[in-house]
């Protein structure tokens, strides 16, 4: 579909200097619980450039989801700041949206696939013709051109997550935050969705921040990977992936660089 021959590595260095979409500075988050105060995020700083694909990887329970909620504005940080396109935001900024892990609970079961996609657009008062155009475009882009009139629960798990992605993209965000979006689908569907995501990303030119605990997935998809330590998490290292684009499941994963990056990341996340 899309021929992605842009040498990402070269473009990246330019973008990094010029256009930062997400800027996280000394973010920390504590929860007040019955027993006292629990720290979920210790001290996290990193940036995401426009058009970049950044994964956040950490051991389970590291506070990855909490970090993503702070980035998105769903949750206020305890200290530190998150700048989105240069501004501090209260609540979720309008040029940003999220895709959750649990598609069965993030799609509205009382709405058809089409209405799920148009609901945020209706709220934004997007004209009807434009709504219909985007639904058609996005459902085709995620490979579900005929699913508009169906209900989410009539679709398989992988298809439901495609709908969730279509809904997020129809919103035309600058930046998409994804919280382990492929953790609840089977392996075959998962690789399909990974490739779909890379294709959509170059087709629509969006910035993606992707939380996962899967090391292979992070290396395969990303331009950079932020590795987190155990909870309360800090950044243990940031890896530049630099694998050639477009990526493909067999070729990319067979590269010696892939294996090296993979074991480095494994050591960072598991081996401390």
């Amino acid at each position, binding site marked *: 579909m899309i021929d992605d021959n842009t040498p990402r590595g070269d473009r990246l260095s330019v973008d990094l200097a010029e256009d930062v979409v997400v800027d996280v500075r000394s973010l920390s988050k504590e929860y007040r619980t019955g027993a006292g105060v629990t720290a979920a995020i210790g001290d996290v700083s990193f940036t995401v450039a426009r058009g970049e694909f950044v994964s956040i990887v950490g051991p389970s329970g590291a506070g990855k989801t909490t970090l993503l909620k702070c980035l998105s504005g769903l949750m206020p940080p305890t200290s530190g700041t998150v700048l989105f396109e240069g501004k501090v935001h209260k609540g979720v900024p309008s040029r940003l949206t*999220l895709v*959750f892990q649990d598609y069965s*609970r993030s799609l*509205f*079961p*009382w*709405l058809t696939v089409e209405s799920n996609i148009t*609901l*945020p657009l209706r709220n934004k008062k997007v004209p009807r013709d434009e709504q219909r155009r985007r639904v058609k475009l996005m459902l085709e882009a995620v490979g579900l051109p005929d699913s508009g009139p169906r209900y989410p*629960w009539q679709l398989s798990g992988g298809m439901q997550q495609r709908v969730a992605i279509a809904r997020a993209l129809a919103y035309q965000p600058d930046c998409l935050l994804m919280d382990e979006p492929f953790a609840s689908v089977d392996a075959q569907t998962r690789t399909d969705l990974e490739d779909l995501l890379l294709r959509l990303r170059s087709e629509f030119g969006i910035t993606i921040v992707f939380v996962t605990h899967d090391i292979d997935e992070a290396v395969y998809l990303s331009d950079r990977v932020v590795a987190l330590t155990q909870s309360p998490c800090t950044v243990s290292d940031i890896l530049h992936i630099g694998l050639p684009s477009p990526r493909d499941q067999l070729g990319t994963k067979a590269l010696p660089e892939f294996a090296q990056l993979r074991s480095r990341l494994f050591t960072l996340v598991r081996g401390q």
Partner: protein
Amino acid sequence: MKGRRRALAIEIWLPVSLLVIWWFATKNGSFLEFPPVRLIFERFREEYFFGRFSSDVLPSLVHLALGYGIAATLGVAGGLVIATVPWAEAAASPYVHFFRALPPPAIVPISIILLGLGVTMKTSIIVLGAVWPILLNTIDGVRGLDGTLLETARACQLGRRYRLTHVIAPGAAPQIMTGLRSGLQISILLMAVSEMVASTNGIGYLLLLSQQQFLIADLWAGMIYLGLLGYLLNALFNVGERVVLKWHFGARVGGAL
């Protein structure tokens, strides 16, 4: 089709057999308490479809419709407000729990003093009894909404109005329907009760009158009428619920919920 016929047979075999037994037991000569079935049906037809329809049956149905309609509106709207506005629950809960604790028939005497004997009194009694299960179930339904759904609504930048009408209300709908169902049962109960005290018309009044005049067949006819009315309204309710919660039943069969 065959399955449906069997289900219907299982549903009605007992009442039909009882009626048949009653019919034959009272065919030749009757007891005071158990008049012949034929007579009961005759009185049923004459009283509840013709003689007393506009003077007693219709007013009762009007009280029921008004009372239940107001209770449903107040209960759902109030429940949504209490569950979504911070502090609203703390402000409302003493009143809710005080009035909910009153047995509805116990408010009949004071209602007569305050509101007289007319439509207002009867409707108010139905509202005061039926509103609580609707209100409390609505609050519970909103409270029980999945966190991911609400976060999705925020991630989609849905405004207050859209969040309420397109996410919170439909998400709580299964439990709101549960509340509306018990509200309906209480409404029918209170419709009859409110007409039994100091009343000059209505089904409840008719029952008392029949008893006092030893019109036993009329009394039985009234029982059948109330039973059928409840059965019919419940069936109507089920049809409505199937329509409103189409997604809910579908998702349950699909195994998603």
